[in-house]
């Protein structure tokens, strides 16, 4: 079960206005990492908007995801500049490394893999982003090293908890 208490605050911030629906969903996506079904139902109830309308927006825009996107969402830029510099080979390399397909999340919910339609860093093509980190002029051979870095941080965090 997902706790839905945060929704009230988000709705309040946007005055529960129908025209702010995209902003509301963006905030929810930011907070929960994706849009869980319970949240969408809560929004639909509280704003008195049919669930189909909420879903039509949640499925139309690429930013929204109805499934968890992983703790470290990996995005391979597939802008034109990155594409002609071999971004699709980077996607394939990541698919092999993480053993998931594009659009999926690893079973341990650590990494999600998808492409993005240009982040505007074309001078650094090809580009990969992981969360807020940007990796320019990315190479196929550097991929294991990069993912390892995040796995290591993860293990460190786990250790410090115990």
């Amino acid at each position, binding site marked *: 079960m997902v706790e839905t208490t945060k929704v009230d605050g988000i709705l309040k911030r946007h005055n529960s*206005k*129908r*025209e*702010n*629906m*995209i*902003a509301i*969903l*963006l905030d929810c996506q930011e907070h929960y990492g994706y849009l869980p079904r319970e949240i969408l139902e809560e929004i639909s109830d509280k704003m008195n908007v049919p669930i189909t309308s909420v879903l*039509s*927006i949640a499925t*139309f*825009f*690429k*930013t*929204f995801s109805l499934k968890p996107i992983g703790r470290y969402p990996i995005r391979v830029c*597939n*802008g*034109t*500049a990155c*594409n*002609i*510099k*071999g971004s699709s*080979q980077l996607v*394939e*390399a990541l698919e*092999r490394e993480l053993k998931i397909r594009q659009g999926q999340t690893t079973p341990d919910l650590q990494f999600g893999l998808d492409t*993005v*339609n*240009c*982040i*505007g*860093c*074309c*001078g*650094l*093509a090809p*580009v990969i982003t992981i969360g807020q980190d*940007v*990796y*320019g002029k990315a*190479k*196929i*051979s550097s991929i294991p090293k990069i993912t390892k870095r995040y796995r290591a941080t993860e293990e460190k965090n786990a250790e410090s908890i115990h």
Partner: protein
Amino acid sequence: MPRVSIEDLKKIRGNGKSGAKVIKFRTQVLVCAGTGCISGKSFETAKALETEIEKQGLSREAQVVKTGCQGFCAEGPIVIVQPDGIFYRGVRAKDVPQLVEAHLLKGKPFEKLMYTPPGQHQPIPLLKEIPFFAKQKLVVLRNRGAIDPERIDDYIAVEGYKALEKALTQMTPEQIISEIKKSGLRGRGGGGFPAGIKWETCRHAAQHRHVDPVLVCNADEGDPGAFMDRSIIESDPHAVLEGMILGACAIGCKEGFVYIRREYPVARERLSKAIEQARDYGLLGKNILDTGMDFDVEVVQGAGAFVCGESTALMASLEGRVGEPRAKYIHTVEYGYKNRPTNLNNVETWANVPLIIHNGAKWFASIGTGDVAENPWKGSSGTKVFSLVGKVNNTGLIEVPMGITLREIIFDIGGGIPDGHTFKAVQTGGPSGGCLPETHMDMPVDFDSLTEAGSMMGSGGMIVMDDQTCMVEVARYFIAFLTEESCGKCVPCREGLRSSLEILNRIIRGKGTEEDTGRLQEIAEVMQDCCLCALGTSASNPVLSTLRYFKKEYEAHIKKHQCPAGVCKELIEYSIDPEKCDGCHACVRVCSVHAIMGEVKKEHTLDKSMCIKCGACIEACKRDAIRKIPRSYAA
């Protein structure tokens, strides 16, 4: 600081020769803080500079300024030392002590970090002598890398908000519109519609219907391979705001929106900051500069939909609905956002406005092509910002006068094609544009010439392709992009794109038939005639332009089952050139499927049945010994 008056603005400007407070320091160290350089850790560089300057006791003489994008993104992080005008590239935090000691303490520019053009040995110290910068003409980007975009005083000091002062005190709305019309300013978002005419229609519609008009700035820069708007907002957000306030004054708007992409967090933050500062100064909000004018701006975030760059889709999305376009029998200048007259212009268009009002229409019209004084359709005045990217030596953001040739852009500013490869095509206009071949290199770049050649200006993406780029694959890439981004509302776009993609996928697998090119052509023509919005009507441009100029490549794929550029995976195989291979083992180490065998210092062999053509070995090989060859079907 509380509200400012016109007198206060003058005082801020009078604070030094060109005004900015920063001039009080003997030396300014400008660190690029555009998205490109930030990802190259330019903030660390800036911090190291500040620490080192303090350590050396230079805090009263030298100041570090974080500026917007300098444009030369490929060479980042970039540092420029003023007033000497020395350009440093790739400055990492670890280089800082040496740089500060050499340049700031001893007064001797630090050669190691200067820019050296590819194939040359002599570094070029001065920014203005570097070919990448020398041929540019900065109008919209005039303040790039010169001011701190997060400080309104910096902008005011370089004549900022002076146009607004002039418009509010000396000009009527009609005069502003007439000035914009005479300047010949055409929409920089891609359509090239004369801005003055749009403003006038919107003003009339609002007056006629007695409804408050709305102003929109389109910063939903969706074209892949383009980042002009991002850079403009990051380096000079107040110029965009001032343009919008001038537009609001001319059209009579009280309310404005900036619709910005979610993928641009830095730009969004800077813009929001700029809006707050302008509100504090009373340049936005009620009673602007005590002239009785009211206008405020709100930033709205997109959620990742390419079609939302289309005006009607953008407005639907502003209203909180799904971003689907509608047919434009009735224009948005009459019935737009919430059925109110809505004037939408692109970021770059808005950023041009303050200069036109400040310097006059004649000055603006003197740059560019054609004579636009009577009729803005008769030429392309002013400059255009392009993102020059792809297979070109100097990638980055450039601003050039309209009418410059493609050759000057790609070979003089761009420094030609890297690694000894040859030029094949340049793609302009994003997914709605086309690919132009070598024969068009001497064509002037303006709205009408590009359209005539089967491409378009678009928002300003310019992607250079070399002999290693497959044109069929490029067409497939754009069609795949558009298939994904088509909203699905109208049938010709939805089904036309899907069918085109199917055919193109077949061709790149070597399974195309001779009728396929004819079918592509036919679908393209139907889409041009029947689609609802510009996404659909122009969606066939990538296919049509590649069919027009690169038909031979389609034929090679279809008839010979070969990809001349060696891109299409199913038509190639990898092989090791025994003459070049020196047995260094680098490829063996990176091959994830163990398809390459051989001992160190001995010739390596590649097992084609195991190879997954991932490209790792090509990347690792320093001797260029691994080749892509046409697939042998007998094997």
